[in-house]
């Protein structure tokens, strides 16, 4: 099996200049498609960094779970960006963001029903047809579930992969957050996912809030990766050793050094898992 890319980081504008000046060693850079649809200095800086780093384009606004379908204008703009940047990976989320002409700037939850599966599969197929590329679909953080859901998130994703040929972007922080908030077994989800389908792993920090006598985990990407999420990452790295990992950090941004150190920590974790696997095989 080909060695995976070493761990990447999400590129955020405040780090752009430090990246350009120092070119720290990270496996790849991931950008949010919606932040680079124009021109100007941000785009120029990205075109420059692209010569030194593989790129992943992570969309947040295709709204793949919309019953109204994917917005044609937005898809055309994302498609032009993909064509221009020729990224190694393309992804968006198992969620929806827009209805009745309003975009809500969030990854809103879907009921995991047969109807929703048909709709998401149609939307993913349409995007893949337009991009002429396989895309990865990410499990979102959820704060509510739906009564009467027909299947688990894992089963929904597996069926989506089956119907569209897409891959899965496994966000282990989201898996942990949703399992805590809705009751669920994140380890079991990792064990259930098809190894071949997982094409990338996300890591990020979350916040804990106390509300109405309960602790809710909020996916704010505003801190270092939590110890419980690192433990899940070990399990994920053992099962999906081929999939590159990525650190996302969006609020309370740390220095670039701290961000890069977090990516190095993920690489060390993977190396440990890999060594353990070799020993087990040798024994």
């Amino acid at each position, binding site marked *: 099996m080909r060695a995976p890319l070493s761990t990447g980081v999400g590129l955020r504008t405040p780090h752009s200049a430090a990246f350009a000046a120092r070119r720290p060693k990270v496996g790849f850079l991931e950008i949010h498609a919606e932040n680079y649809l124009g021109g*100007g200095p941000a785009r120029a800086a990205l075109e420059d960094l692209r010569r030194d780093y593989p790129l992943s384009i992570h969309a*947040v606004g295709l709204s793949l779970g919309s019953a109204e379908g994917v917005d044609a204008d937005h898809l055309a*703009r994302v498609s032009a960006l993909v064509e221009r940047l020729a990224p190694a990976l393309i992804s968006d989320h198992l969620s929806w963001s827009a209805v009745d002409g309003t975009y809500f700037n969030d990854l809103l939850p879907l*009921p995991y029903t047969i109807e929703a599966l048909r709709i998401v599969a149609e939307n993913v197929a349409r995007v893949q047809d337009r991009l002429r590329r396989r895309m990865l679909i990410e499990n979102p953080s959820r704060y509510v579930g739906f009564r009467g859901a027909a299947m688990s998130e894992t089963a929904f994703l597996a069926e989506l992969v089956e119907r569209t040929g897409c891959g899965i972007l496994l966000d282990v922080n989201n898996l942990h957050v949703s399992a805590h908030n809705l009751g669920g077994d994140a380890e079991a989800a990792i064990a259930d996912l098809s190894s071949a389908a997982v094409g990338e792993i996300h890591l990020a920090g979350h916040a804990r809030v106390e509300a109405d006598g309960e602790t809710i985990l909020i996916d704010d990407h505003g801190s270092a990766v939590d110890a419980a999420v690192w433990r899940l990452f070990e399990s994920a790295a053992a099962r999906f050793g081929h999939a590159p990992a990525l650190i996302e950090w969006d609020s309370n941004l740390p220095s670039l050094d701290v961000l890069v150190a977090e990516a190095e920590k993920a690489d060390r974790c993977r190396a440990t898992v890999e060594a353990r696997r070799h020993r087990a095989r040798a024994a």
Partner: protein
Amino acid sequence: MPALHEIQQSFGRGLRSGDFGAVAASVTHPARLSIYRNHFLISLGEALAATYPAVKAAVGEACFSGLARRFVLANPPVAPVLAEYGAEFADFLADQAEVAGLPYLPDLARLEWAMNRAAVAADAPSVGLPELAAIAPERLTASRLAQHPAIALVDSAYPVSALRDAVLAGEGFDLTGAREECLLVYRRDGAVALRNMDAGGFALLRGMFEQGRPLGQAFEAARLSEAELASVLAMLGEIGAITGVEFDHER
């Protein structure tokens, strides 16, 4: 369970009104729907603050967050590109009694919007001064000059660019004797820049870029001298403001 489209419509109404109606009965933890509503209002308020830092500095954090919340509810985004969100904020501010004591605020917002757009406008190759100079004068006056996507024109009865500098630096500003300002917003070497224009030169640019008039017509309406026209054209060529020269008969 209701159809997905109905769930999404009801969810969307809930995000905007706080009343999630039928969705509340469909979800496992209805009280937590407020997490989604808070994120909708707060994240878009932050997007507005990123686009309008001087307006925020001028009114203060608490006032801005109240204005932003009302604006988001009245004008939610229609598309997923946050840098393109908030075009109507200046007009919205003009109608808010709360900030009526800051009469320059809508113009400050217009300037920030133009600068924000200039930063992310599409790249385009420009027509340089030598190329403009090579066109026979009578052909040039009959032509329409196409503007670079980053170009914008902002005028105000207040000195908005100096006001912007002052509020961003946390300094006070004395409006007594303050003069109007005509600004050309452009992008040069990857940075957004402003140039003060006199009223005649500004009227020429309005005619050319906003009204789409041929250069000769815009020139006559602006009542400039030939020398003033030449100096404005030289400046436009130098800053890369022109991306094309269109001749009517060649259309």
